[in-house]
């Protein structure tokens, strides 16, 4: 018989792994609410509890201008979370419970392709559902999880275990301000992937959404889809010089860099929506930093007509160059 483990003892153990938030959700509840391909049972049978935890983004990262540095920092968070999950799972197994780390980046192309990591590589669909169910945060307009302390500026991981822990309560109030009151994430999105138009007065729950394929163009700038597109582009060349130019392009170099060096960061290439979200106790210290204060105007341009509200798409200050090649530069 496995020994009993006190809930708060387990929470302290998780937090001691270098993560910032740790909560518990019941697997049974997730089985009922999450879409079939994303359910915990697709990963492990018999699990009772989903331990979900989050690591915040450094303030210096959010205030930075340089996109690859932010991307790498996101990848590092995911890597640290993987190690934390492994440590927690081992601790549980030493106490005779079964435990499975559920890293965000463990893609299963039959059920969950790279789009599962949109938006911004915060965490898989299952992890985000688990985070909301565990009361770690609530859904944002862009389908990220917003936390009271750090807004969406967290990455997620978790552990499924046979240990039964009383679930934490869900948050009783939506903390996303929604399209009508805020809409900043939608206005800045470089791919216009977040809803910008809704009926006046519609609850955020009915408005939120994400065009994942569009989002992935920026948050996975040299990821799987871009790799495939690039190969097609090369092989569609009509003559050798053109093919060589496309092959020896910056894009080939960036794709190789992501495969060889950036690893987990392949999914965290855009964080525009993350860095303009006004939710979170950390926002006050971020909003007036050099680069962030010029992201968006204080009042967003928006149209209100015929019972509809529409936020204007403004886009980011800096765009990642994903198409540049040597021939074009000449």
């Amino acid at each position, binding site marked *: 018989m496995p020994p009993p483990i006190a809930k708060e003892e387990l929470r302290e153990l998780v937090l001691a792994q270098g993560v910032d938030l740790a909560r518990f959700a019941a697997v049974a509840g997730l089985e009922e609410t999450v879409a079939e391909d994303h359910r915990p049972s697709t990963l492990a049978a018999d699990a009772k509890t989903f331990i979900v935890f989050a690591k915040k983004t450094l303030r*210096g990262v959010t205030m*930075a*201008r340089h996109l*690859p*540095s932010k991307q790498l920092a996101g990848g590092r968070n995911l890597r640290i979370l993987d190690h934390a999950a492994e440590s927690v799972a081992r601790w549980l197994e030493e106490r005779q419970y079964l435990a499975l780390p559920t890293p965000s980046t463990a893609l299963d192309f039959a059920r969950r392709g790279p789009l599962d990591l949109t938006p911004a590589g915060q965490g898989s669909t299952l992890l985000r559902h688990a985070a909301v169910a565990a009361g770690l945060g609530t859904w944002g307009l862009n389908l990220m999880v917003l936390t009271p302390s750090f807004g969406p500026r967290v990455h997620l991981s978790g552990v499924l275990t046979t240990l039964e822990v009383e679930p934490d309560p869900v948050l009783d109030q939506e903390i996303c301000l929604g399209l009508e009151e805020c809409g900043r994430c939608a206005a800045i999105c470089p791919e216009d992937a977040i809803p910008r138009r809704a009926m006046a007065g519609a609850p955020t729950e009915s408005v939120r959404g994400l065009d994942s394929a569009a989002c992935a163009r920026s948050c996975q700038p040299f990821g799987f889809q871009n790799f495939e597109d690039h190969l097609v582009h090369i092989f569609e060349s009509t003559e050798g010089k053109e093919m060589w130019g496309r092959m020896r392009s910056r894009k080939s*170099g960036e794709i190789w860099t992501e*495969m*060889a*060096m950036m690893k987990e960061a392949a999914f965290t290439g855009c964080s525009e929506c993350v860095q303009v979200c006004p939710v979170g106790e950390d926002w006050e210290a971020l909003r007036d930093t050099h680069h962030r204060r010029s992201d968006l105007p204080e009042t967003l341009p928006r149209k209100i007509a015929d019972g509809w509200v529409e936020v204007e798409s403004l886009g980011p200050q800096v765009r990642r160059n994903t198409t540049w090649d*040597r021939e074009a530069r000449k």
Partner: protein
Amino acid sequence: MSLKQEMVRFGLAQGADSVGVASVEAYSERVPNEQKPDFLVAGMKSIIVVTKHLLTGALGVEDVSTQSTNSHLALDMADDVAFDIAEWLEERGHAALPVSPEYADMDLKWTGAGLLDLKWTAEFAGLGHVGLNLNFLTPDHGSRVYLGALLTDLEIEPDSPLEDPLCPGLECGRCAVLCPPDAIPREAARGEHVNDYRDLDQRACSQAAMRISIRSLYTVLRKLLESERPLDTSEVLENRFWSDFYIATNSKRGAFAACFECMYVCPVGKKDIRKIMRVPYRRMDLPPGRVKHTRTPEKHEVAFLGPPPDRDPEYIRDRDFDHLVQLGAS
């Protein structure tokens, strides 16, 4: 104890060999390229640099692949300590941005350039001296060190650069005579200080140090596309290049930090060079008296030797397919 002293103590406890501080303003004024903090983020005041040495045991083995693995671990450790210090500073209310020590930004330079030029940050931070081959040397481990760095908005009293150079330049010249692609200066005007002629042909160096990378893939593909002889597909695919390319992409072994000839023979290093020279294999790299100096009233020159013949074929892998594509080659 001052905050700086506490921070240095923390960095050392996390595994750094040394921790130093440079001023963002002073560095930005003096660094001889565009790799400046403002490219990453505005508003930072200090650069914190850490060093981590390559294990002496790893330098003693013949297998370059094992050394390469160890060099990546040392670099990762330096990077991790920089991140730990960043978190430590943020816990105390300051903002901090870890700077990737290996990401090469193609906006700075077509072939990629480091986000900061860490060798110069380390020299400005008083941790050592940039030597003849533009490798960074510390008093304890010579050029056998890797660097990590972060930026912070905390103004910290900078350290002073060393007063005396560690690298004797061409008075030693050991790195230059051994360098497989002959990428290190082998001559200088008489009386010049090493700081005036230290340099590196980066393109040549990359042939050995990054011998299995996207650059070598381009070289190989072009060679195959322009073959003078009809190609036998099975002969092309049987070449060891492809398995090495797969490993390099998957683990970075051979992709970066894959040539250590200049490190083996650098005589600086209070803590490791005597141990290294006790390894018979290392003693044969460049026995005493092998460096031939020619001094005229105008210039000082050392003669090129290259690495020991048994290691030479390992380095310039761009030659891998020559026997298949060149007419008359066997």
